[in-house]
């Protein structure tokens, strides 16, 4: 066999007690487009970080064209010829297209820029990608995501990249832009660089890649030719695990309608959503990251605009701002705990009472209010006045959830409520969710998530969102992990 462009052998990495990678093998031939697939948390992003020099693996080795490859910084990896295109693009918005492409490797003599050489190199790289007509002097920040992606790929090319890694490149692209990107990637691979393509969308993998590798629980569990492997087989490799979680669940009784969404569309996402949520039920919004689940929740809560469609919350029609929504008894738990869900520097009691605070309150009142919730949800903190930032992820999340419970929200919108949460806290969060829909005057929960076994365990009904379009909600019993994954990735289509 010829020397592989990139070879990874036994790459392993631990973070504290959790093993993110348990020895991954991967080989990439020159000019090959190789797909890397796996569920959230399977270890894809850790593997990419090791490859890009952002982290150093604990064990295993990597080789680039037969030579040892041990990058200790992202810059070193780039110099060696591994170009990463992340989901969040890394362009300097104020610099021009040409300056971005050559940032850090500007041709110059004695510190004076050679603008002509700069333009020539940038133009050549863009031409190879079929975008030779981009204006080189325009600031990069003014272009669409699709064009910025091309500029980033050109940056990789201008440094002579040998391996191009694309991390979920189409998650924020329109269909036509995605097709154009595929053409670019195919054209590029035909010229020599190898492409490692990370995607959730199995239809894309089918269309683009020649071979694939499936990651699961930090291991490469399968590899093969795309042409001879049916999508269903790939899904089986991605899912195949024993489920040991416990999902507390009492008898529930669906009541009056609390939320009605008809043909709703946001500015970009969601594109089309229709859903009804009743008192006393937990409804799941399944979908991959970037599918539009978060945006749907935010539109309902009034954080994102509603461009089209109807929205009726607790009998009151029309969109409203978050302040009104909270008064109507709606609460939102953000997926971004650190930036949005909590005020990290403030205390547990302050966070807990933030959305339902009387104008004037006496000394110790906040603590008095917070204590029972801290006990009920077993939030582990030294005292209610402790800053939230010192708590573990699970306890932070419970504090955020306690705020919604104290607010006595009827309609509780939860976005990835168990992300980055330890197993014990997870169960406590499930219990809290169960209590919301079974209390004397039950509330309703709309829960977005991409971890399907969890959705199956705690939801009464589940609807799947894919590329901004929400499918019909069906009873949880009618779904399986595999069928959810198929619907979310479009493998069955």
């Amino acid at each position, binding site marked *: 066999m010829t020397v592989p462009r990139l070879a990874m052998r036994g790459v392993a990495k631990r973070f504290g007690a959790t093993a993110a990678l348990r020895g991954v093998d991967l080989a990439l031939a020159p000019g090959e487009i190789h797909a890397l697939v796996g569920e959230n948390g399977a270890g894809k992003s850790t593997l990419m970080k090791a490859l890009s020099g952002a982290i150093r693996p604990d064990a295993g080795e990597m080789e680039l064209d037969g030579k040892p490859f041990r990058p200790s910084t992202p810059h070193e990896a780039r110099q060696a010829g591994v170009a990463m295109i992340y989901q969040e693009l890394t362009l*300097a918005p104020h*610099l021009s297209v040409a300056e971005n492409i050559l*940032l850090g490797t*500007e041709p110059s003599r004695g510190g*004076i820029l050679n603008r002509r050489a700069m*333009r*020539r190199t940038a133009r050549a790289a863009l031409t190879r990608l079929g975008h030779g007509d981009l204006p080189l002097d325009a600031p990069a920040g003014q272009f669409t995501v699709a064009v910025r992606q091309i500029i980033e790929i050109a940056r990789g090319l201008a440094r002579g990249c040998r391996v191009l890694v694309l991390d979920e490149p189409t998650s924020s692209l329109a269909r036509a832009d995605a097709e154009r990107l595929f053409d670019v990637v195919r054209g590029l691979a035909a010229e020599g660089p190898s492409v490692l393509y990370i995607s959730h969308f199995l239809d894309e993998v089918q269309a683009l890649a020649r071979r694939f590798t499936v990651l699961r629980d930090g291991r490469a569990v399968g590899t093969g030719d795309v042409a001879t492997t049916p999508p269903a087989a790939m899904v089986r490799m991605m899912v195949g695990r024993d489920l040991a979680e416990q999902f507390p669940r009492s008898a529930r009784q669906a009541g009056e309608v609390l939320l009605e969404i008809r043909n709703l569309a946001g500015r970009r996402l969601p594109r089309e959503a229709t859903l009804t949520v009743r008192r006393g039920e937990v409804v799941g919004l399944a979908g991959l990251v970037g599918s539009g689940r978060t945006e749907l929740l935010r539109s309902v809560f009034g954080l994102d605009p509603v461009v089209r469609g109807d929205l009726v919350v607790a009998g009151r029609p029309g969109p409203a701002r978050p302040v009104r929504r909270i008064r109507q008894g709606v609460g939102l738990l953000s997926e971004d705990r650190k930036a949005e869900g909590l005020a990290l520097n403030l205390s547990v009691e302050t966070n807990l009472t933030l959305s339902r605070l009387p104008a004037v309150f006496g000394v110790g009142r906040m603590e008095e209010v917070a204590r029972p919730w801290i006990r009920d949800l077993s939030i582990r903190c030294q005292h209610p006045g402790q800053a939230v930032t010192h708590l573990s992820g699970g306890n932070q999340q419970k504090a955020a959830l306690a705020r919604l419970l104290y607010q006595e929200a009827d309609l509780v919108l939860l976005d990835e409520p168990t992300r980055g949460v330890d197993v014990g806290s997870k169960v406590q969060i499930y219990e809290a969710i169960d209590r919301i829909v079974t209390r004397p005057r039950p509330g309703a929960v709309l829960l977005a998530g991409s971890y399907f076994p969890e959705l199956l365990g705690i939801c009464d009904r589940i609807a799947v969102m894919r590329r901004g379009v929400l499918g019909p909600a069906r009873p949880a019993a009618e779904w399986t992990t595999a069928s959810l994954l198929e619907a979310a990735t479009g493998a069955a289509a």
Partner: protein
Amino acid sequence: MKRGDLLEWLRRLAQAMGARCGKALGPALGFLAVYALFCFLSPRTFMTAGNLETVARQSAMVAIGAVGMTLVIISAGIDLSIGSTMALSCVVTAYALRAGASPALATALGVGSGLACGLINGLLIVGLRVVPFIVTLGSMLVVRGVANGLASEQTVAPDRRGWLDVLIAPAAGAGPLDAMVGVMVGVMAAALVGLLATDIMVRLQRTDDDDVPVRLAGVPAARIRGGLVAAILLAAAVATVRTFPPGVWLMLVLALATAAMLRNTRLGRHIFAVGSSEATARLCGVAVGRVKVLVYSFCGACAGLAGVLLFSRMRVGDPTTAQARELDVIAAVVIGGGSLAGGEGSVAGSVIGALILTTIDVGLQHLDMPKWWRMIITGGIIIGAVALDRLRHRRES
């Protein structure tokens, strides 16, 4: 020519002019408007050549500080300590002269003290990873204290000041508008018009932005442009030297050199990259820490030079001078199009910003406005200018 063609031509003309004058166009128009307004309000005293000289002289210090601050703000930083640095440099210069140093050595020591302050700021910001606002807030106090201690809380008055006396003094003898200056201004204006015309013709001819040299009447456009630029610089140099004291030329030379550095060197582009997206710059192998240290050092050295000019004007080293001057300097940069979020700003804009601030101050003095009115109006203009700039940004995006 059809109507549509004409419209298209006009559109490209406007675009070409905008591209030529760049970010400084807005502030420049603002300056002209403010200046014209005061000429209209007090024609007899304000609309004189002598007054233009006063404005230029009085703005030199803030403008020099603003040149350094421009780099800091482009790199998404801030330096609150430069008012104190100016005072320290002022005291150091006076102290050195009193101790018997030559004017040249005293100047070097003054600028050097500013450079040292900036270097320490930069090293602390990079080394301790404390935000620039806090580091320079602290060093603002520290440096002010050092200046006071060095001067024993008194003004330092050297006997011999040599040429430092005339560095920023009103031009003696030759009237501000002698015949020579008139001719030079004429030459400059003509060459400037020629330059703009050449540039616009080039931009109109060029269909895509490739590197085919454009020719006008058989001569490469680049050569015409070079000749015109040389003529402008030469005429400007002669006129400036005959009209303004050395402090003003120093400011202009510093501004031109810094603008060229920002535009045409790796370092210049890296300063923009750090301010625009530090993570990206780091990923692409830009030595972010080194760029920051350089930027703060340069800003400190500029403040040091401004301190020497301050000494030249007051003829004593006063440790309490230039209180809150950093705020004027920051305002000048921001009026000139700098963004405190980084990635944006231009030296030309900042210098014009300093001119605008001085013009308003001098103009209101001419109108016999009390000082408190001047403060209110200046404050309003700072907020208004930045709000206008944001509005323009929003429309673009």
